[in-house]
């Protein structure tokens, strides 16, 4: 019994290591695998928005848009924010934000403080829409085409390189098609 107790730490560690291994090999990097939703129609949603209106899938129809999940409590979102601002201001990309598991007042403060790159912000306080989109954390960004299909999924903060080499060419292509 006593010996068993002393083996507990190593047993726990083996379980933990198995998780790490699984995450590394079988599961892979959760941010690297393409979301199974890519090429699928975006999940339907209808959220109250920060400006007192609403944000739904139908409202996005007919244009190429970005959906960006973010939260005021998320540091990477702050890091990503200037890039989104530039996308919105210089490239005129329509970006719709979904505030994931965030209180309305906090979202409001975040936006008034940093400026809003978003055309409209849906409030997903319970995180349901996040689950529908299968996000693993915030920020994550989806590219939605004119037909309402998800065409690309970025599972981590966007980088300047990604925007230049991948996102902008894709948006141009989708806008033409």
């Amino acid at each position: 019994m006593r010996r068993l107790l002393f083996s507990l730490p190593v047993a726990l560690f083996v379980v933990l290591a198995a998780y790490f291994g699984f995450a590394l090999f079988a599961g892979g990097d959760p941010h690297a695998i393409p979301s199974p939703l890519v090429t699928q129609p975006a999940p339907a949603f209808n959220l109250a928005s920060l400006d007192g209106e609403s944000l739904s899938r139908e409202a996005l129809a007919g244009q190429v848009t970005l959906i960006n999940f973010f939260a005021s409590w998320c540091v990477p979102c702050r890091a990503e924010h200037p890039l989104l601002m530039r996308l919105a201001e210089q490239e005129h990309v329509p970006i719709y934000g979904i505030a994931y598991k965030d209180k309305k007042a906090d979202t409001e403060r975040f936006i008034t403080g940093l400026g809003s790159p978003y055309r409209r912000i849906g409030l997903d306080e319970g995180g349901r829409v996040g689950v529908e989109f299968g996000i693993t954390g915030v920020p994550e960004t989806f590219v939605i085409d004119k037909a309402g299909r998800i065409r690309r999924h970025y599972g981590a903060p966007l980088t300047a390189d990604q925007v230049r080499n991948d996102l902008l060419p894709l948006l141009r292509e989708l806008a033409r098609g």
Partner: protein
Amino acid sequence: MIAELGHFALILALLLALLQASVPLAGAARRDLGWMALARRTALGQLVLVSLAFAALIHAYVTSDFSVANVFENSHSAKPLLYKVTGAWGNHEGSMVLWVFILALCGAAVAGFGGNLPAELRARVLAVQGMIGSGFLLFILLTSDPFHRLVPAPLDGRGLNPVLQDPGLAFHPPFLYLGYVGFSVAFSFAVAALIEGRVDAAWARWVRPWTLAAWCALTIGIAMGSWWAYYTLGWGGWWFWDPVENASLMPWLVGTALLHSAIVVEKREALKSWTILLAILTFSLSLIGTFLVRSGVLTSVHAFAVDPARGTFILLLLLVAIGGSLSLYAVRAPSLKGGGLFAPISREGALVLNNLLLTTAAATVFLGTLYPLFSEELGGPKLSVGFPFFDRTFAPLMVPLLIAVAVGPLLAWKRGDLLGALQRLWLAVAAVAVVILIGLYLTHGGPALAVLGLGLAAWVFTSALVEWAERVKLGRTSAGETWRRARYLPRAAHGMTLAHLGLAVTLAGIAASAWQEERIEIVRPGQDLTIAGYALHLDEVAQIAGANFTADRARITVSKDGKLTAEMDPEKRFFPVQQMPTSVTAIHTNLLADLYVALGDSDGSGGWTIRAYWKPLVPWIWIGAVFMALGGLLSLSDRRWRIGVAVRAPHAARAAAAGD
């Protein structure tokens, strides 16, 4: 050429490390003094070789040798010299070289200052250090070569991430790594003790200063990181429960537990196997902290680039180091002789409570950090936990810890008198009552939890003073006698008082953040913004050019009641090489509160978004951390670490063991 020399030095260091990991260990088993003595020389040799490699890397950075891939990717010729040097460890490969450099430093210190250690123990400790060194050097050489060349050499580099071009962050990693790697010595001592099957007071007397030193460095490192986050991220937060921050907090929590349990081993020879386990866990968490963020298992803003080959190697390394040491623990720990018995209410008992709470807190942080991973693999919804989880789990664990921290030092060893201790704390109780009453009166119905936090801070602060005053008989005997007592009181005791006072100061800083004020307004030059009684007058916003950036700099004159108090110049910088903006906040402090101003965007018609915060007591968070680290250092200078008790004690202990 110099880069190749550096690479070669790393290879040689690996060979030496392999030698150090094997021969002295065999020597200790065979009691061959010659083989054991090899450990010292290889440890010193490693320091020379790794220093050479580290110097070669810094040389490549300083001379902007862009034929070295690592320099090309992380440096730029237009960067200030300071950041060229610190840029050497601001990336994955370079930071690993810094890691082994500190490891070599620790190994050489054990070899150099360990003259009074029993030969076998020293050989085994250094052998374990050699194993850790081999693992890391292999990792660097196989997956993260910092000296990889580019042909043809590019004309200029890509530049260091502007966020990292900051004095706070430049020196944050060395302190953090000093902490992480310093714990490797405690780990090596633990493994060596398990191999030998013996833990005694002399062992604890060796482990404690190392743990203390590592703990001090880690405390400073964490405080610097949080201070950096506070002044750069531009909204005044100072802790985000980000995976990378948590990775440094976990070894700190368990290391703090280790620090306290080692006292019990030293004074009472109890809690031996628990202390060994803590030593293993502390370093394991340091390893996990160093690696988790680089392996692709978790991602974070601060994380370095991810590469699957590295991930595999890292996992292997963790398996060998943590799995190996814990297996050894499972086999050998049950046979360790238990030491002195003690009643639940005693100094030992209080330290056990401290340990339980600290390790539980570390486990909570661990779960919270890895929860997204677990939840996903168990098929549950993909979740991430943020502030709410930590606020609800971490804080409740800290409350009993903070209550106990006041009582513990007043209890006697073996069997304490709780009632008596509490009676001696009447002054602390009174202080709590006063603070809470004043707090409630001033904020009437404000944040009750914050008032409670301040009350706790008063409790910890006053009781630390009471304990110290009792020791030196302050006010109960002549001033001369008190002075004499204070002088002859071990420095470790003064250190404890200082560290506990620091804890109280930090706690007060954290609690008071509930009363911060915040104004976000668009202001035109010539207009005012008022916050907490201060008038912030925006004089102008000017364009300026720095070495490798351009910036908008605001000039704000701050006055209170018509009197000029400060001039503040928050900036918004833009780094053209990386196409990245950063903000430089302006902070005016009077040590009781910070006035914190960040410049936002222009509204296009002459107005600027200004974010201003008034943060009461916030500097105390870091002042307290500095107190804690100073307390540790004071304790480190204690006489008993410096004199050679360690030589005689093992014999005495052995004789005692033979006697019973």
